[in-house]
């Protein structure tokens, strides 16, 4: 069985982001980019599934500009067997477009399991996994905090972190799983794996090759920073506090 993992190249989690002066988006030039943390967890899970013997191959996939190749190299260095890069140029792609591309790729590669991170840290959409599952008409287990694969029965038991607690689902494969933070701790890229990665293949395709038309339905109008938090005020007496609550905060 093949496991396909979709990874995204995003602004590094630890970077202090800034909004571009023209408010069209976040500053991404000259900023460190790396693999989305949730995607790392997804890849780690796929690797563990392969190591447990439930899968034969892990394919990493990324949709984005030319530099996505770096992210795919990281995926290969972590242990993925091969990678596919869908080059969409510099324009940002929205979750629905990515979902359509992934659907086309799934139809080509025929994996038994598609694993993604639950959301990307740059747009926080949390949509791609669910959309792909809908388009493919596959079962989905999102926010997975534990995944157990049963090879013979071809089903996956997924524990999901939901607001009320943990929900356990049983999914028939093929299925889509999106990963949450507590699923696992991703491995580091070790030198022997980096060495092996040099001989691994990154296949390049375009949306046209997959017969997918990318038509953005959404337009980003403006991106602004959240309002700066105002400093607190130390009041000198209870009367002053009541006065402020009445007249300034309008609570009393």
């Amino acid at each position, binding site marked *: 069985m093949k496991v396909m993992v979709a990874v995204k190249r995003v602004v590094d*989690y630890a970077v202090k982001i800034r909004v571009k002066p023209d408010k069209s988006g976040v500053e991404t030039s000259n900023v460190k980019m*790396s693999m989305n943390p949730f995607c790392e967890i997804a890849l780690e899970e796929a690797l563990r599934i392969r190591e447990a013997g439930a899968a034969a191959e892990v394919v990493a996939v990324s949709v984005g500009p030319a530099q996505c190749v770096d992210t795919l190299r990281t995926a290969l260095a972590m242990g993925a067997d091969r990678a596919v890069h869908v080059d969409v140029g510099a324009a940002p792609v929205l979750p629905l477009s990515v979902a359509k591309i992934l659907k086309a790729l799934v139809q080509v590669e025929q994996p038994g399991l598609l694993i993604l991170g639950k959301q990307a840290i740059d747009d926080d959409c949390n949509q791609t996994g669910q959309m792909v599952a809908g388009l493919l008409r596959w079962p989905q287990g999102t926010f997975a905090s534990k995944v157990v694969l049963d090879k013979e029965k071809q089903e996956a038991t997924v524990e999901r972190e939901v607001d009320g607690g943990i929900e356990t689902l049983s999914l028939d494969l093929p299925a889509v799983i999106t990963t949450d933070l507590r699923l696992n701790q991703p491995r*580091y890229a*070790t*030198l022997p794996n980096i*060495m092996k990665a040099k001989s691994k293949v990154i296949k390049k395709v375009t949306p046209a090759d997959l017969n997918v038309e990318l038509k953005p339905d959404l337009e980003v109008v403006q991106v602004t920073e959240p309002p700066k938090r105002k400093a607190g005020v130390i009041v000198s007496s209870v009367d002053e506090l009541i006065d402020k609550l009445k007249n300034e905060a309008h609570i009393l």
Partner: protein
Amino acid sequence: MDRRRASQLLAGYRQFLLGRPTLSSHEQSISGSYSKLNTWRPCCMFRVSVGTPQASNYLNLGKTYATKQRSFGSAATDIPRNPAFSKLNADDISYFRTILGERNVVEDEDRLSAANVDWMRKYQGSSKLLLLPKSSQEVSKILHHCNSRKLAVVPQGGNTGLVGGSVPVHDEVIINLALMDKIISLDKINGILVCEAGCILENLSSFLENEGFIMPLDLGAKGSCQIGGNISTNAGGLRFVRYGSLHGTILGLEVVLANGTILDMLGTLRKDNTGYDLKHLFIGSEGSLGIVTKVSVLTPPKLMSTNLAFLACKEFTSCQKLLLEAKRALGEVLSAFEFMDSHSMDLVLSHLDGVRSPLSSSLYNFYILIETTGSDETYDKTKLEAFLLRSMEEGLILDGVVAQDINQSSSFWRIREGIAEASVKVGAVYKYDLSLPIDQFYGIVEEMRNRLGEAATVVGYGHLGDGNLHLNIMTTRYDSDILAQIEPYVYEWTSKHKGSISAEHGLGLMKANKIHYSKSPETVQLMVDIKKLWWLSINFKANEVLTKKSQKVVVKEAAAVTRAYY
């Protein structure tokens, strides 16, 4: 020069080195954990290290100090209190209040107890007064008054030093520069930063990063140490291998001398060959010649791409070869080359939370951290990976990991920077900071392990790229028997191999009387002479007419500085 005379000189040197607080804040835990450690500290402003001076007050008198109270410590540095120094009285305090205002003259016991003890909790002074000046003029007035009243003072910054130089020996007045934390200017083209000495290193780094520059030095104590202290101790740190010493990156200083004279050497020029470059005397003199109040630093541009690799080696010879190869293969992008032994790794893993080893096996003997900083990420990464793969094929590295994002880099650095913090958690730490020739580098660690056996845990780590070993010997409590096994053996061994007994931490109280292990008697004599002349020149104007009798008195007083205590 015979041994007796040499030791007299050394004792004299020790005298005027005492009470200078300046600490190199290397090997400090990272600021967050550092402040957690000192929960007894009510106010974090005392955590800054500043090196400053006060020696002249010290110099004025040639008497002996009463026995210093010391919690525990390294070797015999019991210095009796010098009775020539006056005691504080109410007039002094009210005078200080008129200069500094009520709030910045602190007699509160809690704050004083914090300021009286060093970060390692090895040295404790008994000062009764803490002063917080806000400007060079205030510092000048304080020192002028202390000089005339013969009051001993101790300059203090972040108090993160490791050799007991930032806390009073006895009851010196503590002058803490924490309130002098203004950034004065930044030349955005050349990256020349001018700021006051009380600025915390991490704050300067954050400010500079916004402008596209970085500080040329970086140490574990950055959250608390002050730049004045870094300068007074000639701090080295993690970026030394790339950006060099503070002697190269500091362009100018403003220093207040013991008699209150403000010496303005705050140049912002890269080149200025007009006369003796006196700022170099202040850099690293641990506050014995003046209090640094303003600083002008040449800051390197911030380069976008950083790569970090965590590697494992089997023998120390592999580490040495790796260093050479790294310097050749990585060349201009190499920005850090740190090493730690397997014992340090075990220490960190067992005492710190949320830390995991990047390498799966624990069979390795030595770990190396290599960092590259450059302007092109892909290029640097390719260069680094090619170098690492080659080294692996040659058998220099057994295994290694390359950080893929900033989180992973921080976790690797956390391991290396956390060794000092983890050491303190064991109980008692004897810390040694040695510069050794590369082929002798690890020998002392193995020697000490053999010598102490089960009695102590010995770890070695440090800036291999600079030839600087940090040796930590840990036991559950401080014990003079263990100490006797360690000292003076460590110093003798270092001296025999022509190393330095204090690579970057400075001498402070801990090693003042050990200077002879690394400096010849003639050199020490010259230092003493300089100090004497300095004192003479600032206390007597050039055109003052001295009668023969008064000349004799002056010379005698100056000589008293170097008189032995025993």
